[in-house]
């Protein structure tokens, strides 16, 4: 097997995650899909690290994880406070930008 397959898998997972973001209305699930996309990227980075034979890819993946963790914390906090204010976790309900 060629390690390139990891990249294909990463692409597939990324696309699935992106589609999920578009389809789901529950903000928490949308968030999970975003996490899925991030993970797919991480897989790609790790595969690239292997390809290039150095650890920079892994470092990037590591940083991605850190940032993702921070993002999740803040994002979930936002979801919670939005839920408290509007009693809904649907992304469609937050459509005040609509004219």
């Amino acid at each position, binding site marked *: 097997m060629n390690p390139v397959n990891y990249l294909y*898998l990463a692409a597939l997972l990324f696309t699935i995650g992106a589609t999920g973001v578009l389809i789901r209305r529950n903000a928490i699930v949308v968030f*999970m899909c975003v996490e899925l996309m991030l993970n797919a990227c991480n897989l790609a980075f790790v595969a690239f690290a292997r390809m290039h034979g150095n650890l920079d890819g892994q470092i990037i993946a590591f940083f991605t994880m850190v940032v993702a963790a921070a993002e999740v914390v803040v994002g979930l906090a936002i979801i919670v*406070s939005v839920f408290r204010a509007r009693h809904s976790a649907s992304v469609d309900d937050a459509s005040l930008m609509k004219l």
Partner: protein
Amino acid sequence: MTAQLAAYTTSTGEAFQFWVLGTIAVIGALCTVFMKKAVHSALCLAGTMIVLAVFYLANGAYFLGIVQIVVYTGAIMMLFLFVVMLVGVTAADSLKETIKGQRWLALLCGLGFGTLLIGGIGNASLKEFNGLGRANANGNVEGLATLIFTKYVFAFELTGALLITATVGAMVLTHRERTERAKTQRELAEQRVREGKHVPPLPAPGVYARHNAVDIAGLLPDGTPSELTVSKTLRDRGQVRDVSTEALSDLKALEQRAEDRLERSNSGGSNSGEASK
């Protein structure tokens, strides 16, 4: 020679592992997207992440593999579950699309994007895999540490700041300052009286002694179920068990039985009467 080979192909074991676990990962991802309940999605995602952790290990990223399990599957996914519990089940869980054409556009874009991405990877000349043999020579963790504390030290420091900020941010966002005294039971009761609705406590669920479960709506005198008697979460989840028809048929059966019994006694009586006659 072997190193060279390792660059192009992997061991059969790894190939086997890839195909099996890869399938699981894709299924997990699909389930994440298409599972109706957020809890299920979360669990599927956790599964996918564990699979990814294994792949990291297989790719020589030992540190990341462990971190993936500890941080992602362990911490982050648990956070998700907590929030899911906090928020509860809402109508947003429904997979029914409300925006016209959104689903088809999304699928079309997804399909196109995926095709392009995969096509792009296929087109790229990604033949040479150097392998991490040399990079991991001093141990993966040490290698990473060297990089983090030298080349990426600024980024690393920045992530520290980022995390602190995120923590503080999360606290600020979720913390709710009580600006007024909480209402006492008495005040709440008085408010209810003033507003003139539901002066008594909400009606209890359950019908008769046989069905006092919380997910069974109480019946109004005409036999229709009253939504008020069931908690909102259950209602949103659609987990209200409507027992109105069942209850009516039960009632009928009960009456029938009673009649039967009476009749039996009657008939028994008559029988006996007859018999006695």
